[in-house]
């Protein structure tokens, strides 16, 4: 009966060939039924096992089990191959087609610039402070040591509101001309040391043109502690502008005049960008050591505490960074403009 065992191999090969030949899932099912179905050829041999003499059974059983396992494995493999083939789209995908997009919004470029500046100051332990945009003359001018007849107070340069000041004093109300007014509010509300930055809108009575808008934005830094020096001011400013405008930026401090700082400086910077504009230096900020009079006005002892303040225009920073040539673009909010940043 050696022929029985010998017949298993060819039958298995026949089954495997049928499986490979199946072109789709239904042909594969036919192939499976033809061999492993209840009337299948392979099942038929399995049924013959019982008729074999006892001594042949182990060898034949082993061969049948092996054969069946092989066929089943081939079926499973072929099935998954054919399923994958069925899942393939009829046409190849065009991966160059534009996708179905979900719009993401963007922060306004001035917000982006402000956030970047705030981040840099925060690395140095500064926190953000805030104050009102409608101010009184005391916080905007008097407390900052601005002389009573200083031209900055003129109605020519500063917007005054028609509303009365309800605080009971005779202070005229105005739209703050600088964020420096917040220096006074912060120092009056807390004892030194102070490390704050103040971003915000300020107002000057300038007609709108490429470099002016009656509304614009500033950021102010104030630092008060014991033993604060001009050296600290220079070091901080240098750190901030290198972080903001790149390592290659060069800075210079020019003596200048502001009523609330002494000594006062203007800061110019130079970079490849500035040179491309055909200039050696571009003015970027004003700063100085807090004037002792200002400390006296807020009740800090100028003999104990020293400090510096500096401020600059956010539009100017954004204009330099992005090469924007007209400040009015920021406030026109053309979507094509906003989408660029």
């Amino acid at each position, binding site marked *: 009966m050696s022929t029985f065992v010998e017949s298993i191999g060819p039958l298995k090969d026949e089954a495997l060939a049928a499986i490979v030949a199946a072109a789709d899932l239904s042909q594969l099912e036919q192939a499976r039924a033809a061999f492993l179905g209840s009337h299948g050829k392979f099942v038929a041999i399995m049924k013959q096992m019982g008729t074999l003499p006892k001594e042949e059974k182990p060898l034949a059983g082993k061969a049948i089990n092996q054969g069946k396992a092989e066929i089943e494995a081939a079926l499973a493999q072929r099935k998954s191959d054919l399923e994958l083939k069925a899942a393939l789209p009829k046409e190849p995908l065009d991966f160059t087609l534009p996708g179905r997009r979900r*719009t993401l*919004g963007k922060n306004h470029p001035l917000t982006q610039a402000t956030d970047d500046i705030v981040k840099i100051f925060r690395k140095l332990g500064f926190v953000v402070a805030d104050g009102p945009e409608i101010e009184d003359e005391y916080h905007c001018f008097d407390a900052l040591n601005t002389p009573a007849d200083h031209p900055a107070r003129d109605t020519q340069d500063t917007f005054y509101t028609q509303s009365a000041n309800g605080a009971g004093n005779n202070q005229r109300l105005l739209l703050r001309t600088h964020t420096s007014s917040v220096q006074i509010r912060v120092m009056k509300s807390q004892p030194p040391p102070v490390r704050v930055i103040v971003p915000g*809108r300020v107002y000057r009575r300038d007609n709108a043109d490429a470099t002016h808008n*009656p509304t614009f934005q500033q950021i102010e830094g104030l630092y008060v502690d014991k033993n604060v020096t001009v050296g600290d001011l220079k070091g901080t400013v240098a750190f901030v502008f290198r972080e903001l405008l790149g390592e290659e930026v060069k800075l210079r401090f020019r003596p200048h*005049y502001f009523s609330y700082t002494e000594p006062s400086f203007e800061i110019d910077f130079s970079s490849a960008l500035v040179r491309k504009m055909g200039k050696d230096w571009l003015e970027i900020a004003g700063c100085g050591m807090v004037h002792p009079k200002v400390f006296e006005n807020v009740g800090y002892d100028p003999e104990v505490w020293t400090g510096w303040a500096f401020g600059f225009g956010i539009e100017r920073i954004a204009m330099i960074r992005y090469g924007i040539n007209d400040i009015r673009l920021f406030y026109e909010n053309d979507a094509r403009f906003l989408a660029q940043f």
Partner: protein
Amino acid sequence: MKVTINWLRRYVDISWTPEELRERLTMLGVEVESMRKLGGEFEGVVVAQVLTADKHPNADKLSVCRVNDGKTERQIVCGAKNFKPGDKVPLALPGCTMPTPPGTPPFTIKVGKLRGVESQGMMCSAQELGLSEDASGLLILPTDAIVGQSLAQHLGRVSGDVVYDLEITPNRPDLNSVIGIARELSALSGNPLKLPAVPERFEPAEAPSIATVAGQVAVRLEDPELCPRYTARMVRGVKVGPSPDWLKQDLEKVGIRSISNVVDVTNYVMLEIGQPLHAFDYHLLAVAPEAKTPVIVVRRAQEGEKFTTLDGKERSLTHDMLVIADETKPVALAGVMGGLNSEIKDTTQDVLIESACFKPQTIRLASKKLELRSDASYRYERGSDIDICDWASRRAAQLILETAGGQVASGVVDAYPKRHEPKQITLRYARTNQLLGLEIAPAQQREYLNRLELPLDGTPGESSFSVRIPAFRVDLKGEIDLVEEIARLYGVDRIPSRVPCAQPGTNPFDAVYDQIAEARRLLTGSGLMEIQGQTLLPQTAVAHLPSQLVPLQNPLSGDMNVLRPSLLPGLLEVLQRNVNQKQTDLALFEMGRVFTATGNAPREERRLGIALTGQRNPLFWSGGERDAKFDIHDLKGLLEEFFAHFGLRGLTFVRRPEPAGLYLESANISLGKQSLGEIGLANPMLAKKLDLRDSVVLAELNLDLLLARRNPAKSFKPLPQYPAIRRDVAMLVEETVTHEAVLNAVKQAKPSHLETVELFDVFRGKNIPSGQKSLAYAFTYRSLDKTLTDAEASAAHEKVVRQFKEQLKAVLREG
């Protein structure tokens, strides 16, 4: 203010190049706004001396010379024969452009080879320089010509100059003068300041005919507070005429038109020392009846007094202005401008020189009120040097003598009732070092101030010293100001930088800043673009808003005359601008302050405004949703998502029966009893007016309140362990039944194990009676501690269904 380098050089030696000078001035705090080089005659031609002359190796007619140009030795190839070593000749340096006959191209000297030998310039003939027709050989200069000097200077011709336009800070009026700038340069360089020699007194040649000034004019100060000093000096017998060239050129280079010798002198001295001067025609002063001599009266103008200034305009004066008058009429508007009636004319013979000091505020006020600014008012407004009045007057007299002849009457009338006492300021050495972060030695500190002409007052002490403050330094008020002077002269660029070590600051707003940034992040993540609008709006744009406006007292124009009471008008304006530019699909937000008038001070409030219009989705090439436009549900959903992520729960939307302002339909958004804002459909009539074609949906929220009511606390809830059971309900209800009413009914039914209720369909139309709608809800039931049975879920759900039938009169739809 403009100065020229040559003018500065009269008072201080300057060894810097024009570029270096620009840098030095700027770093001293005198910012150079622009620098302009003026070409002179023979620009680039210098006096040079021939050292050697040898035969050219390749050309018989040429020689190769070594020439000293004052700075270096040059090799020059030359064709002339009329010179010998030792001769001084004009040498045109490379870069120099030679005069050429009209119509021929300019000829520029370059370094080049002549027959194989390099020539670094050209020695010139008189013809080549355009000086004469003599082309026979080089122009041989006299032996005393100075090697290295420019040829122009040697010949006494106009030489080149450099004009600096300076920005003078308002605290330093003393720098509005050439000598003021020279003083700074002297302090910086250590080179002495050389002031012009001005006679202390003028001795008239014919004493009897020229009496003293005092005998010919008197001065009366009616308000010494407004005019603390007034000097009058007189020059008789002048001949008014054109100024000499040097005077004309000096003035014209700095932008002042030359008028006549006498007037030019007053301008020259003003520019030189900073003291404004005025010259009158003495004979145009009226003499009071029974008086022998005129009196100059410095008095307040009468209210409404008429006066015609030099520019020919009649002006109406007020009592807070100061005039210079005789007994009958004003002759000058003090410190601002002279009068037409006392102007110096060609016929003027006797000139009265006014050199006075006025209170800056008075001059500023007059100048502002009359909108009349002059070089004099500019200087007076900032504060003039009361001590220099007499010097400036003598200087002017000296120069009038020189340029217009005449004789100076001896003496001066000097009305100076209260002498200026120089202030004294003490500086502690340690204070300087404390503020600058440096160690500057005491002697060095004293030296810096001394160079600025701040003389020591008394003997310097161990730890401090005092200086006297001259009248011209109005800016020096306290110790701190002296520290700045030392910083300037030491050089700010030399102060070493120090980065402060981080130490946390504190401010309550710091956290708020981050919350606002977080809100912005959520909104941009939802697809909104941030805008920043104008704070100042035209009143017309906010007219239909129910708000108490804060108007400006002094707007620039009607386009910007109120503070925005809402962000929405600005948003609508931005929509309009973009739609006009064919940008029709817009989802925008703004965060900013709005302003409303209240009984007391105006109130500021931070708000969030949102506007959507146009297509909801970016363009896509397939799908049914692709043409969908933004509607109110987009905005509602956006807000719901925003609130959920921002930590705001329990908001209610209540429809307004009568929407106001910009809205067609709107709802009030509240949190408990507090109103947070409004959401709605923009009034289409308004949108149409703005050329907005698609419908616009808007929302505006009080951001301050939003931040205050935020509860961002997060805590973990265990994930469900047991399966959920879903039950759906579809029902017909009246149109008036809102989603909120359905939720309330569910709440009242108190079904156990209810996890979520979700609305998944709203349907009107086919098979639905009019005035009704079909609502379909999905209910999810789940227990946290066991597997819920079907019966338990059904029992709970039954309660809900019963509540719907009773409370909402709902009719359940089957299948």
